[in-house]
């Protein structure tokens, strides 16, 4: 997925024959920090008495090239090598687990495999789809002093019948060259989602803002974003609404052959 990001962004200047060369299978290690705040309320008759909650995660994430599929899409395995609760220092339930992001080289995520193993109490991977734009930002072709818009749509399906699809539209601007061969990029966008969970209607709307820094040597060196959204679950018993705010950052710490 990270390689997809490089690929698309690089399209602006690379000769065509070079773009057709596939990327080497490197394992990319990132330090991940994520902080989130959640505020929950009930509407339409649903009684909810729940105080605000927070989630803080710190750890190491590795991206590895996964299988290449017949339709030309490529899998990237995102593995939570070590992950601790930032508040307690205890290992988090996601530690040791992994998902696979399957995407075309355009950056369009087609499928997130293994999400059922990240979902639910003690893991909460079902709300961490923010990691998709963090690790797989769909960067449009950008030239100097240009802005460009990208649209992307990705599924967040835990199991069949329990999921939603996120539509994200973002405007990108090329930032300064922060060092020789190292470029900054900024983006801001809007997102919405729609889906269902065993008959419960799922919807969300929100905003995302992020910054990327990359280098010629290491690819995506840093990715940071703030994503805020309102998630609503609507069922016969009323509507459960949660305001979610995520601040996440991934910093490249090394690349190695698998």
């Amino acid at each position: 997925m990270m390689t997809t990001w490089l690929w698309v962004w690089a399209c602006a200047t690379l000769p065509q024959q070079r773009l057709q060369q596939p990327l080497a299978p490197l394992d990319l290690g990132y330090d991940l920090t994520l902080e989130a705040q959640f505020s929950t309320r009930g509407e339409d008759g649903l009684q909810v008495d729940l105080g605000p909650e927070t989630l803080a995660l710190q750890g190491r994430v590795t991206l590895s090239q996964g299988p290449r599929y017949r339709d030309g899409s490529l899998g990237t395995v995102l593995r939570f090598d070590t992950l601790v609760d930032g508040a307690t220092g205890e290992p988090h339930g996601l530690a040791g687990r992994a998902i696979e992001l399957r995407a075309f080289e355009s950056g369009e995520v087609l499928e997130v495999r293994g999400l059922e193993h990240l979902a639910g109490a003690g893991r909460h991977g079902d709300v961490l789809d923010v990691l998709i734009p963090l690790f797989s930002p769909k960067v449009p072709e950008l030239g100097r002093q240009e802005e460009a818009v990208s649209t992307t749509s990705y599924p967040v399906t835990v199991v069949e019948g329990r999921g939603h699809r996120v539509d994200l539209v973002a405007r990108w601007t090329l930032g300064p060259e922060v060092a020789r061969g190292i470029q900054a990029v900024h983006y801001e966008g809007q997102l919405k989602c729609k889906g269902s969970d065993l008959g419960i209607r799922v919807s969300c709307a929100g905003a995302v803002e992020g910054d990327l820094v990359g280098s010629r040597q290491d690819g995506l060196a840093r990715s940071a974003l703030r994503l805020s959204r309102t998630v609503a679950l609507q069922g016969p018993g009323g509507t459960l609404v949660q305001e979610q705010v995520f601040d996440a950052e991934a910093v490249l710490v090394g690349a190695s052959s698998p």
Partner: protein
Amino acid sequence: MMLWLLTPALAAPVELDPAPPLLYLDPATLRQHLHAQLGALETCFADLTDADFTLGLTLGRDGVATEPILTPADPGRQACLASALAELSFPPHHEDPLQIESILVWRAGRLVPHPHLTVATRPVDLLFIHVSDPDVASALWASLQGTPAED
């Protein structure tokens, strides 16, 4: 002019195989591994003619199977299986210890592969909303569906 160029290392030809898989085991994979290794368990049934048992196993992240549970209960045979399981190996995986269940069919002096194999699933009530207390999450999920959970 954009400075984004692929490094020589990144531009090298890709190896399509082997690809690192997601290390989660589905019932079909588990069934395949169990059936291939049934012979290691046959010594525990040599005194029987024909019999059927349900076998429960715990499968650690390292692929080691432990804690056999036989139904109908047979403590002696269960102890034998606990030793015989040391001969079995399953792939390592990302999940918590898996609880799996299969059926052992003993016919004419050998264990016959049976298609039944189930993996215990984790209950996941409330998705896409972060609630740290699983009991609260379950109660909210029930309320949302208009069927409040009983205390």
